């Protein structure tokens, strides 16, 4: 069958939940999709989301409301999220759940056969729909199946095992295509598109060990940042309180553990101390992630009360009926047993906070357009919806919702946008050639540095200076060190010169992007002189961290006057450094108020 040349062509980079939903929306509107992914889309990182997806279904007799979900999200995000955007998301949530249910997502059900709901952090009502403890996997699979259906119909062409390298702009500066490289044959090719959507996920690998998959490196985001896309709020990195520390990765233990009654504790004076319940009586173990992570960090690092004085606390499910646990949390308890060798149904798990999610990302408007015309961003790689801290189970929601917005808007732009000139064959070839030259140059690198070792060092650096507690001395030092890493990148030596599946050469290219992205996180944090959500900054006095009379660290407060604004980062091609500015956003619906989880929320 001959291809219909009048059909609009949308290039979507990333086959996680956001990218796949955008794909489906484009196909339904009659467009064609070129879908690019590091891996078969069924293996995308969305499948690591465990605990659930928030939507006000109100099927538990608790009088939950969409407004309450809205308020919890805005309050949980410490008033840094665009409220109009958040409102759109929470209103759409119940409809999305019904759609997933029709698609065949095997949600956990009550005895009556309706969707079960569980508690999650920062929310007082049962609002989290879930499929056991593998909700992301199940939602991703349902979307993968629907996209396969569109593939059979000829609307989707998958480019799996292709790495996005850069966008191509026409002479008017409009994004009209991209360059990608086949990860097995190493072929580099330029592709035309009417709109490009990046749905490439988060940058967890910038921190080395994190809960993210190895493919979540932020490289694509950094690439478009270097081509003029604005990054917003990159300093807001979520540290998940409960992960199993590991040398290859920190494996997530879902917040659902706490949602289903799990308690966090350490020994103090020989007795179990349920410190979250004591510090935050209103929310107890279900405080939001930033709050729980800081408390665990304080108990271990500042009070020295970690298990065996190490950076570990107990997450305890052993008091809960094991049949109930099996039904609600089976998948992750099995994972803990498998990787740790202990049964969490019988003994408390040992966990510690880990880098988990980026609230920040590419700046987008409410339709998910970036500042580069023709380029859109969707899912974790954008900055929308979560402000300074994301609530648990809002990530699957934002991934899905953003796809339902970006897909139709991509078609709208393709049909009515001011796209300027088509890319000529010469322009396509020039873009391809540029990437080819860069790649060929990497293959000739013969310095003394190993890219994987540099990556490891960068991770250590970011954990040391830009994680749970930050201060301006450390952030300044980190920027200096990152610049050194960038110089050392030039001195990398390649051992692999193979023309087949050369993972080392591709990693070298990604690593440079990652270093530049790390600089946006660090600089964003350096310039934001306040504490808000996941960004907690210690006051310096005479160049040293300040302590109060009780010896407790003193943190900066939230500064709405100066910093209730979106951080905007642009790339300076001359110095390669990030330039920081701030932008107003809409917070007109819910008036900012102090965020305090020790007491019940007041509206």
């Amino acid at each position: 069958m001959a291809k219909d040349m009048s059909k609009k062509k949308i290039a979507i980079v990333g086959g996680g939940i956001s990218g796949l939903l955008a794909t489906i929306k484009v196909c339904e509107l009659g467009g064609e999709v070129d879908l690019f992914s590091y891996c078969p889309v069924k293996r995308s990182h969305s499948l690591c989301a465990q605990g659930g997806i928030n939507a006000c279904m109100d099927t538990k007799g608790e009088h939950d409301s969409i407004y309450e979900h809205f308020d919890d999200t805005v309050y949980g995000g410490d008033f840094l999220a665009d409220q109009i955007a958040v409102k759109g998301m929470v209103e759409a949530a119940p409809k999305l759940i019904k759609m997933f249910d029709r698609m065949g997502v095997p949600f956990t059900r009550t005895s009556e056969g309706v969707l079960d709901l569980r508690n999650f952090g920062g929310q007082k009502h049962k609002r989290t729909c879930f499929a056991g403890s593998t909700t992301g996997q199940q939602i991703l699979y349902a979307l993968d199946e629907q996209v396969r259906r569109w593939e059979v119909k000829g609307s989707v062409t998958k480019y799996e095992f292709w790495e996005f390298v850069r966008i191509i702009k026409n002479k008017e500066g409009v994004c009209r295509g991209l360059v990608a490289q086949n990860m097995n044959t190493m072929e580099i090719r330029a592709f035309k598109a009417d709109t490009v959507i990046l749905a490439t996920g988060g940058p967890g690998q910038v921190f080395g060990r994190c809960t993210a998959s190895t493919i979540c490196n932020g490289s694509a985001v950094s690439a478009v940042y270097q081509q003029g896309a604005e990054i917003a709020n990159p300093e807001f990195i979520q540290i998940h309180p409960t992960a199993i520390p590991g040398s290859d990765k920190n494996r997530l233990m879902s917040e659902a553990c706490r949602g289903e009654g799990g308690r966090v504790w350490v020994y103090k004076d020989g007795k179990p101390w349920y410190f979250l319940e004591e510090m935050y009586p209103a929310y107890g173990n279900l405080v939001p992630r930033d709050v729980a992570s800081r408390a665990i960090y304080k108990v271990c690092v500042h009070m020295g009360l970690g298990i065996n004085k190490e950076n570990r606390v107990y997450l305890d499910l052993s008091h809960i009926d094991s049949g109930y646990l099996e039904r609600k949390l089976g998948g992750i308890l099995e994972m803990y047993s498998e990787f740790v060798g202990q049964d969490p149904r019988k003994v408390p798990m040992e966990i510690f906070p880990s880098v988990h999610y980026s609230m920040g990302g590419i700046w987008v408007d409410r339709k998910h357009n970036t500042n580069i015309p023709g380029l859109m961003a969707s899912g974790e790689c954008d900055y929308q919806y979560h402000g300074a801290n994301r609530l648990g189970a809002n990530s699957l929601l934002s991934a899905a919702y953003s796809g339902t917005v970006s897909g139709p808007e991509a078609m709208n732009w393709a049909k009515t946008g001011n796209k300027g000139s088509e890319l000529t064959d010469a322009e396509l070839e020039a873009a391809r050639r540029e990437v080819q030259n860069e790649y060929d140059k990497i293959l000739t690198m013969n310095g003394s540095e190993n890219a994987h070792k540099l990556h490891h060092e960068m991770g250590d650096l970011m954990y040391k200076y830009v994680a749970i507690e930050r201060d301006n001395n450390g952030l300044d030092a980190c920027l200096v060190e990152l610049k050194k890493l960038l110089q050392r990148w030039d001195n990398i030596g390649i051992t692999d010169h193979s023309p087949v599946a050369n993972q080392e050469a591709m990693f070298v290219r990604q690593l440079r992007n990652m270093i530049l992205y790390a600089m946006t996180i660090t600089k964003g944090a350096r310039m934001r002189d306040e504490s808000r959500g996941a960004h907690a900054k210690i006051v310096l006095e005479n160049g040293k961290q300040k302590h109060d009379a009780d010896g407790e660290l003193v943190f900066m407060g939230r500064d709405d006057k100066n910093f209730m604004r979106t951080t905007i980062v642009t790339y300076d091609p001359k110095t390669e450094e990030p330039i920081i500015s701030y932008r107003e956003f809409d917070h007109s619906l819910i008036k900012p108020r102090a965020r305090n989880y020790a007491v019940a929320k007041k509206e």
Partner: protein
Amino acid sequence: MADKVRFIIERQDGPNDKPYTQEFDVDYRPGLNVVAALMEIQKNPVTVDGKRVPPVTWECNCLEKVCGACMMVINGRARQACCALVDEIQQPIHLAPARTFPVIRDLLIDRSVMFESLKKIQGWVELDGSWEVKDAPIQNPYTAQTAYEISHCMTCGCCLEACPNVGPQSDFIGPAPTVQAYLFNLHPLGKFDAPKRLNALMEKGGITSCGNSQNCVEVCPKSIKLTTYLAQLNRDVNLQALKNIFNF
């Protein structure tokens, strides 16, 4: 416990090159798994003979046994490498690609055939669209639990690697894609198209190619009761064949 762990790795430079083996030593540490060990080799790709070689190529993503990417043959058995803990397996550790699938390089294989098979069995619900239609139907929670079990299949290919009937001698699409047909036939909307899926399984490479060797259920990393569902599908397919003949 020795300070070093010895890996004997079957390598292959490209799809058409001859396999060869190389040996590497990796520093032992508690909790070390095969993927973590391969990452160490990346940082210092030197064989036990002191030869600097290109790092070993393999596929991995999640390292939590949910993505299915890192399937390889470890000490003769197909499994996920991320949860293969060095402490729990015999040393030296032999790694090889799953040769049921075409090898691209080293341990990296091409499993696209499985995704093609999911097209054949029409592994999806025929949705009107992603827009709002109505409330989804209530589902029997017990049926939903069975669906949840089968829906864990991560298309890793362990069961195809272990199945004696998957290979050049047969067209069998393998246990994993076959059993997915059962999943969609369970769904209240998916079952509308059950006859299509069952008819697809009557064709060449379908369920009649299953020799009931029971290897699949032994190796499934998600403990899916593959043989149970294959047996039920076999009944469903036979029933469908009768329906086709007698037109009822």
